[in-house]
């Protein structure tokens, strides 16, 4: 028998409690709706493709960038061109041969595949978005470019890697995927470049479109990929047809007829919209490089300078004089007692040397000078700092924000690609004539004196081997610190010599206010363990869990 009637109030209260929380349960957000799902990103109703545009924008963040990107150092600080001024930077693991499959530096394996995954995902979903066919075609071409670029970043480091094509791997797919050959990867990238180049934007682009991938970028990528593929590292039998294809690819960029060298070498790196820049990683104006690279003594209440890179004497000596002739050439006008005078103007634009003007005072890298005080503060190890990429602030009083886009492809590289591929295409004068033309145009822009026969200091009638050396030298000084030499020396297969020596610096002693004595000194060794270092190790965790993926030999 129920006899609770007397206690009704108890149940009334309990009912109230239950009701209260039931009321609270009604009409609440069951899942966080601010987190977009796929159908809101690739939305059938998004007429302007606003959200899809954000998805393609995300792919752009996978473009390679440079400058002080490896623990505060340039990749080129692992070449014979420079060393890091820092006491400790991971770049030293690369330059001292200490990289291993568990101690990875510049490891882009995961990042590149993330870019590839996102590009493929974009390509597979974008069709539902009701933007114009024109936009869709353009976006798809851009996504495919970035995917191809990611593959190139992989193969230049690791050799052949698994090609996924349009397949998007899911959690339920088998990840035991073997590598494709290097040649297959090259073919894939080239095919992609070929099929997208007509769909990409064509120069000149509008002010709003600046920074987007253009036809020139696709052709430039193709040129670089084919050049790498034809190089000794990847073409051991020296198949000349590969060089010929590479030369054609470079010429295709030139034949676009749009690109040109900037008249002023310094401005190449600080001009956002420039006919020389084919593709650049777009950044806002900043003064990061001024602060990171300027000589360490330029410090005030307003600014600091870290002087994080020390170019080597080896690079300094590679620059010719204003005559275009090597400093070892008695007719070059080089004066060992005044070693920085009358040099290739690119030298002044690339190197901070003792006496160079900066922020209203000369750089002091003599022993005990303001920029080399020999205290324990981070300072140059070689007597030089890196000036390249900075505007001319000789007489300025402070740093100010400047365009510092990292240039991925620029026209000068294409000219050098063309010269190199042509010269290797066959030991004939016509090929060397092509090479001469390219080198001369670069030297002319650099404002080297034209000299006899307007050869800008180049030796007349060079044979193929001499021309090869001349092109390699030109590439070194023109493209210094642009993440070229690190790969160039590897693909030339000369790293065990070039990257296996004691790097040098200059010890400068001040005799009186304007007189210095110079002594070349050994600074530190760079180590290259051949042949294993010609390719990076694949991350250990990757090889362990994907047993179909073979590790590069030696690692």
């Amino acid at each position, binding site marked *: 028998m129920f006899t609770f009637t007397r206690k009704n109030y108890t149940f009334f209260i309990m009912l109230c409690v239950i009701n209260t929380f039931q009321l609270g349960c009604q009409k609440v957000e069951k*899942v966080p709706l601010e987190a977009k799902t796929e159908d809101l990103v690739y939305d059938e109703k998004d007429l302007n493709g606003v959200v899809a545009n954000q998805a393609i924008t995300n792919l752009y963040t996978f473009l390679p960038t440079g400058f002080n990107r490896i623990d505060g150092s340039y990749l080129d600080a692992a070449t014979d061109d420079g060393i890091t001024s820092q006491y400790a930077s991971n770049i030293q693991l690369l330059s001292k041969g200490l990289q291993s499959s568990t101690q990875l530096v510049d490891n882009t394996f995961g990042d590149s595949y993330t870019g590839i995954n996102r590009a493929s995902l974009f390509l597979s979903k974008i069709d539902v978005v009701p933007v114009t066919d024109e936009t869709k075609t353009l976006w798809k071409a851009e996504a495919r470019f970035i995917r191809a670029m990611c593959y190139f970043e992989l193969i230049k480091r690791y050799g052949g890697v698994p090609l996924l094509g349009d397949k998007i791997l899911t959690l339920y797919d088998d990840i035991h*995927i073997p590598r494709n050959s290097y040649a297959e990867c090259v073919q894939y990238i080239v095919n992609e470049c070929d099929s997208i180049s007509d769909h990409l934007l064509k120069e000149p682009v509008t002010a709003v479109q600046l920074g987007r991938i253009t036809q020139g970028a696709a052709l430039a990528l193709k040129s670089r990929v084919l050049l790498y593929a034809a190089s000794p590292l990847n073409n051991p039998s020296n198949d000349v047809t590969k060089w010929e294809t590479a030369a054609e690819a470079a010429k295709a960029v030139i034949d676009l007829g749009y690109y040109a060298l900037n008249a002023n070498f310094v401005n190449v790196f600080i001009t956002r919209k420039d006919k020389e820049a084919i593709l650049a990683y777009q950044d806002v104006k900043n003064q990061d490089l001024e602060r990171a690279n300027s000589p360490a003594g330029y410090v005030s209440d307003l600014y600091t300078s870290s002087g994080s890179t020390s170019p080597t004497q080896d690079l300094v000596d590679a620059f010719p004089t204003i005559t275009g002739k090597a400093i070892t050439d008695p007719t070059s006008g080089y004066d060992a007692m005044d070693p920085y005078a009358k040099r290739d103007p690119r030298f002044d634009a690339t190197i901070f040397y003792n006496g160079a003007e900066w922020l209203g005072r000369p750089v002091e890298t003599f022993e005990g000078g303001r920029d080399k005080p020999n205290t324990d503060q981070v300072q140059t190890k070689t007597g030089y700092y890196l000036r390249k990429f900075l505007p001319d602030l000789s007489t300025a009083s402070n740093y100010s924000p400047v365009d510092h886009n990292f240039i991925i492809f620029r026209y000068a590289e294409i000219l050098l690609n063309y010269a190199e591929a042509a010269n290797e295409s066959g030991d004939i004068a016509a090929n060397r004539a092509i090479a001469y033309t390219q080198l001369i145009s670069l030297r002319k822009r650099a404002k080297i004196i034209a000299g006899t026969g307007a050869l800008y200091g180049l030796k007349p009638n060079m044979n193929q081997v001499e021309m090869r050396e001349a092109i390699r030298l030109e590439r070194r000084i023109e493209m210094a610190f642009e993440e070229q030499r690190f790969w160039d020396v590897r693909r030339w297969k000369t790293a065990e010599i070039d990257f296996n020596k004691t790097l040098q610096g200059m010890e400068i002693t001040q005799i009186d206010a304007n007189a210095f004595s110079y002594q070349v000194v050994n600074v530190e060794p760079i180590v290259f363990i051949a042949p294993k270092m010609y390719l990076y190790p694949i991350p250990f965790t990757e090889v362990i*869990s994907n047993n179909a993926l073979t590790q590069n030999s030696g690692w």
Partner: protein
Amino acid sequence: MRKLLLLCFRTFILCSIFLGIISENSYAATVHDTILTDTVRTDTIARPLDKSYMDYQPAKLNILYGEQSRSMLVQSVGFLDGKRLESNPVTNLSNAFAGQLVGLYSNTSNGAPRYDNASLIIRGRSPLIVIDGVPRYSEVFNELSLNPEQIESVTLLKDGLSTVMLGNRAMDGVLMITTRKKSIKPGSFLSFTAQGGVQNAMRMRQALSSYDYASLYNEARVNSGLAPVYSQSQLDAYRDGTDPYLYPNINWQDAILRDNAPQMRYTLNAGGNYTNLKYFVSLDYQNQSGLFKEDAANPYRTNINYSRYIFRSNIELNVNKNLTASLSLLGNIQDFIQPGAGYTSIFSSLLNTPSNASAIYNFQGSYAGTQKYRNNPYAETVASGYLKNNLQSAAVNFALKQKTDKLIRGSWIKALLSYAPSYEQAINRSKNYNAYNYPVTGDTTNYLRVSTISEQLNSSSVQNRFQQTYVELSTGIERSWNNNDFSALILASYDNSNVINDLNQVYQGIAALLNYSFNKRFTFEVAGAYSANNRFAPRKQADFYPGAGISWNLHNEGFLKGNKFLNEFKLRVTYAKVGNADPGYYVWRQTYLGGAAYRFGTGATSTASITQGAFANPDRVTEKAKKFNFGLDFAFSNKHGWFSIDYYNNSQYDLLQTRGESSLILGNEYPLENIGKNRYSGIEINAGWVATKGKLRYSISGNITSASSRILFNDEPAQPYPNMARTGNSINQIRGYIAEGFFDAGNISAPSLEGYVPSEGDVRYKDLNGDGVISIYDQTVIGNGQPLLYFGANIGLQFAGFDMNILFQGVENRDILTTGNYQFPFNNDGKGEAYTYNMNRYTPATASTATLPRVTLFNEVNNYLTSSLYVKDASYIRLKNFEIGYTFNPNLLPTTVIKGVRLFVNGQNLATFSKYKDSDPENYTGLYPLQRIFNGGLSIKL
């Protein structure tokens, strides 16, 4: 000598555990009537002397959602009387448990006021905190920030059966706090306690003097192939102090820290116990200062100051003979002030500012700094303004319990509603300071500003906000007939909580328990829960968790009944499946997230980007464990002594981890999946002896726990060498290389890191796979491979009005990995601090005695690898707590209004014995130090 001491203490602790067994004959004669009474906590202000076994296992115990008589207990639970917490002058309750509760491991790694809570581990996991029957969370502040005097008892629910009714929150075990509800004796009382103490920092590492630092720095530069930077005359200047501005020698620790910091607490308690009304009301204020120095010129405090007000009111009213209403209110208000730079970054500055970095002040009085050392720790301490946090928290519990005997005899129904909001606001009144570098002492024109003053900020932000609504409806029955005792409970609960702007998290479930006891001999218990969490995918939210157990009171069997020696002998076995809901934040949905922006156009216009987030795992479910527990309890010699032992084996499965066979080629992050399997097992022993001899009453008790763990499965890919496998080893294993001493002229060609050319004095590692180079293949378990052993020992004495209590606590087999700034000299690009122990580095002269490799300036690729060289044995024994008190004879007090007066002094962390000498074994990373506390006070009872 220290080793001998250590040995003595360890022997003593082990002895104390087994003392009960051997002392049977000698003390059997001292039976006292009161000892056999099942006494419980009283309101006398005398401190807790453990008068009997019953103080450890009282006749009735609080278990989850109710009480149970000890004879019918099947579950494995630990019990601690609230009184035994009171001698600990700590502000966070978690620091009072160490060594007192068998099975509970505690570790305090930060000593800062407010943030010094210990992390608590029970059977390998951090327990859920349940206060007065409601699960509480540390979202805004540590839920154990409570006053010990408001605590009636602490119950540790250790096995699966004891927690299974919490279902998907049961896997971690439960630490259950019950607050005081009434005066024990009929009538009422009012008591007041005032106490104050001083704290001082324990075992801080000693920085090198400027001379030693600079000399060692020179040595490091030479070892790194660089020229020394300090000339002999500069070194002499550091040593002689001839120019304290240009060649300073600052002990920064002394410069910014005081020797002592005060703390105080006032507590006013009142309680009543009448037929229809029971109440306990308490008001508590405590204030704790930090160790930082202050500048009298500041019109405000910059030192850490932590004040806390706790108001608690528990009222229970019998509305009529069948209906009980209870209302509990809690207010917890906290204010916390710290220097504007933040106490953590000041301690981090200490690790990065050597003695010769700069002076505190320049010669003309401004703060000093250099280009290399822009942070002046003293200026950060006193001239960076202050930060203030205000926290308000409340909890209201309202419960009604109706006896429904008229429907079914012994039955009842109950409703409980709890609402607990908390809110913390952060007020930022920080600023920066000017610091200058004068390269020439006395030359006022030549200077560089290295730190720039900024306006004092005045901003506030919501640091955190949390709100919890808990509703529970239950019904139960308790019946006894003939030789049968029966109880049952069915309970539905709904726990809805919300942190700032997250969607609410809801735990809900139905739970039930049946307990049946036959003839006081056998007890059977089954319990289970069906519980859910709303953040899993639909249809993955709920699961069923059953448990069962049996106990056998052998002392009630004929063959043991009336045994003079053995008073109690009980055997317990339980088994349960429990869960741990760790749903993440709706990770079962595949969503897209904002990514890094990119820029287009001549104006570099920033364009937002969006990308697919990490792969969703729609199949994510609750982690689970199958827990087995076997226990034996003995009481003997007229319950003077007791001994109890528990063995547990917890098999965890469905543990969340990422796949072992995973590939970056996938191009997206792997989600956590229910993959892992671990096992925790161990033994917990608890023993003691209490007796009275004439006027002397004494107790001695001890506990020891052995806890081992093993990774059974973690989807590890096939490793090339067996030493590389994690599977099969302990969960907290430290992995790395085995250091075999240092390279010297004799073994310079021994295997070394691939590509690395070793120098004399570099660490030499063992080539485990014998391939001639040191690589990942040579890594193995280098620490925490042994079961953790932890223990506590307690001695209580009472003689006339005096009482005394001593608590030791310790850990064995505890390894730590020392690394980073506090271990490696000149870390942080050559700028870091170096400590006295860094002088034990390798030099050709000290090759045979060196404990550390040669000093270098770089982040050494070889010498700073994780290796056994940096794995330290951080086992320790502490004199954790000591108290002496004197209670005046009430008859001798001048007035009858005052019913009791007690004076006491106590201390915390009074002595520590450890092989690890560099710093404190619990707090060794250079954070705010742990405190040694000396405290004293007075209690008055009306």
